């Protein structure tokens, strides 16, 4: 295909991505370096019968003019990244110096919003991903043994947790584990504690969100692994059987190595997707106990005062986090490409 033809074919999609993905990224990075203008203050000396006094007031007109003239705000460099709402190096250093023990230091760190969100985001990402892979693999192995007629039926219901809108899915679970809901009552009965509420404790909230995450994403792993099982070379399995491999050894040494590329694929995709965890926190109304980077951005942007600078700084750091998680995928794609050309 000629360059010219390619250009015209690619122009609409390229333009859409340039204007609404690339440009906003640039804009977000820029905004994170600017803070809103402070109000312009004027000091007027007013002299009365009892001597002169200096009065400071906000010059409304000048403030508005300044804001209209430069809507971005004033340039503050990396200040926003370093303030208390973000990396907060000052507070971290202080916490380190005043620590009484290591756990005390982490407790102090947990009071800083960015580190609190980071702690949950990373815990969530790195517990949900392996768990959903394990669960997905088990479902795939179990479903693969079923009769053909049942498979479609099972796959239909298995797809639901993944297809349903994350906010809706988390709400459905949230209502069930409410202390008055069916699962909530069951847990209270099982724990023999009529006042037990999953929502009240930080630890249980985290567990709840992680369970939701596994429930939501396991179907994806299941479908991918199930497709992989269909291409399993039967002769290898037979050879293993002739060699006297037990059922577990067949899974361990034939099936899992065969599925390994798919496991890597699912792991990489899910690490990126789980890192942006956001809707369940809204759905489970869990922000008092668990926050994530995406939730901080959402929280900064909604409400009366839209804190664009603060949200932008968090956005940039989230993008960097995603970039780190994405790098193995990029390296893999690059290697694939090199081997083909």
């Amino acid at each position, binding site marked *: *295909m000629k360059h010219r*033809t390619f250009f015209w*074919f*690619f122009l*609409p*999609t390229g333009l*859409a991505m340039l*204007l*609404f*993905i*690339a*440009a906003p990224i640039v*804009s*977000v990075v820029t*905004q994170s370096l600017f803070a809103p203008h402070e109000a312009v203050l004027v000091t007027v000396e007013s002299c009365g019968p009892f001597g002169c006094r200096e009065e400071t007031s906000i010059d409304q007109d000048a403030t508005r003019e300044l804001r209209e003239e430069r809507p971005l705000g004033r340039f503050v460099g990396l200040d926003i990244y370093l303030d208390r709402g973000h990396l907060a190096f000052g507070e971290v250093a202080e916490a380190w110096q005043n620590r009484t023990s290591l756990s005390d230091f982490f407790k102090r760190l947990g009071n800083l919003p960015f580190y609190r969100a980071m702690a949950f985001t990373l815990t969530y990402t790195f517990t949900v991903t392996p768990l959903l892979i394990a669960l997905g693999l*088990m479902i795939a192995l*179990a*479903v693969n043994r079923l009769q053909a007629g049942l498979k479609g039926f099972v*796959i*239909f*219901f*298995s*797809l*639901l947790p993944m*297809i*349903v*809108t*994350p*906010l*809706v899915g988390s*709400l*459905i679970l949230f*209502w069930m584990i409410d202390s*008055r809901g*069916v699962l909530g009552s069951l847990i209270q009965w099982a724990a023999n504690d009529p006042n037990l509420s999953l929502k009240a404790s930080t630890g249980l909230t985290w567990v709840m969100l992680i369970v939701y995450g596994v429930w939501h994403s396991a179907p994806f792993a299941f*479908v*991918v692994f199930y*497709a992989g099982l269909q291409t399993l070379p039967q002769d290898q399995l037979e050879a293993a*059987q002739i060699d006297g491999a037990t059922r577990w050894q067949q899974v361990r040494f034939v099936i899992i190595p065969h599925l390994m590329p*798919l496991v890597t694929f699912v792991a990489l995709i899910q690490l*990126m997707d789980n*890192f*942006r965890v*956001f809707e369940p926190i*809204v759905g489970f*109304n869990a922000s008092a106990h668990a926050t994530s980077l*995406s939730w901080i*951005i*959402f929280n900064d*942007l909604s409400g009366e005062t*839209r804190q*664009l600078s603060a949200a932008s700084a968090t*956005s940039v750091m*989230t*993008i960097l986090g*995603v970039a780190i998680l994405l790098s193995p995928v*990029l390296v893999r*794609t*690059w290697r694939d*490409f090199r081997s083909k050309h």
Partner: protein
Amino acid sequence: MASKAQRTPTGLKIAANLFVVVWLILAAFPFLWTFWGSFKVELDFFSIADWTNALTGKNTEATYGRPFTGAGYHGAWVQEEFWRAVINTFIVCFFVVLTSLTIGTLGGYALSRSGFRYTFWLLIIALIFRAMPPITLVAGYLLPFFEWNLWGILPTTIIVLVAINQPFTLWMLHSFFQNIPKELDESAKVDGCTQFQAFRHVIVPVMWPGVITTGLFSFLLAYNDFAVTSMLLSESNRTMVPEIAAFLGTTYTEGNVMFAVAAVVSATAPLFVLVMFFQRQIVSGLTAGAVKG
């Protein structure tokens, strides 16, 4: 014929079947339960006294004389005007799917037919964009959209969702077009067609399976989006998901949780139908990336 070595011992068979049943309950029960409960009053849906009330609808019967009531649906659809959100959602989804498939097919086709090195880099850039959480871009949209008075209206949101959709659409359609033999359009070009004519008359007739699969995922992305729609739409233009989120704020205080439950069930129903009819396409779409990658 299964040999003796391949035959599964009974214990394992039972365990595996039991596991499937447990998983089915985990996957399906929450939906059935909420669907059933959406026809009850709040005292039954959230039952302090006895959880079986949610099944029998004791309080619902006391209030309405029947164990089922459509009060939640009436409240959500009529009183809270949820139908507006439903219409908005379908407008947004329709145009997002239409636009992103149109420009995505052209782009994906071009990427699959051009052998130059820059196609690889374009795909890599698309992959990076695909990984970007949409919420991180929202801060970049707000200021210009406010300045140019574009904020709050449906067309803006549609274009933004189309753009966010593009990286994924490109990847899917690119790998799909690569499976269509190049000889097809090459021979059309030898016969004197331009590249576009070859695309129009030779490729378009055979591309529908891939386009439908990609369209399904575009639909799901637009339908399920919360971050972009809740931030970029004004109150009267909200789609279903941000509307449900807004319900939560008001209903918990006013005691109308059943409105939110009815709205949630209403928003789930179309997805149910979608999976029922397009299960095969969804499965093949999910695995396409994996088998390639």
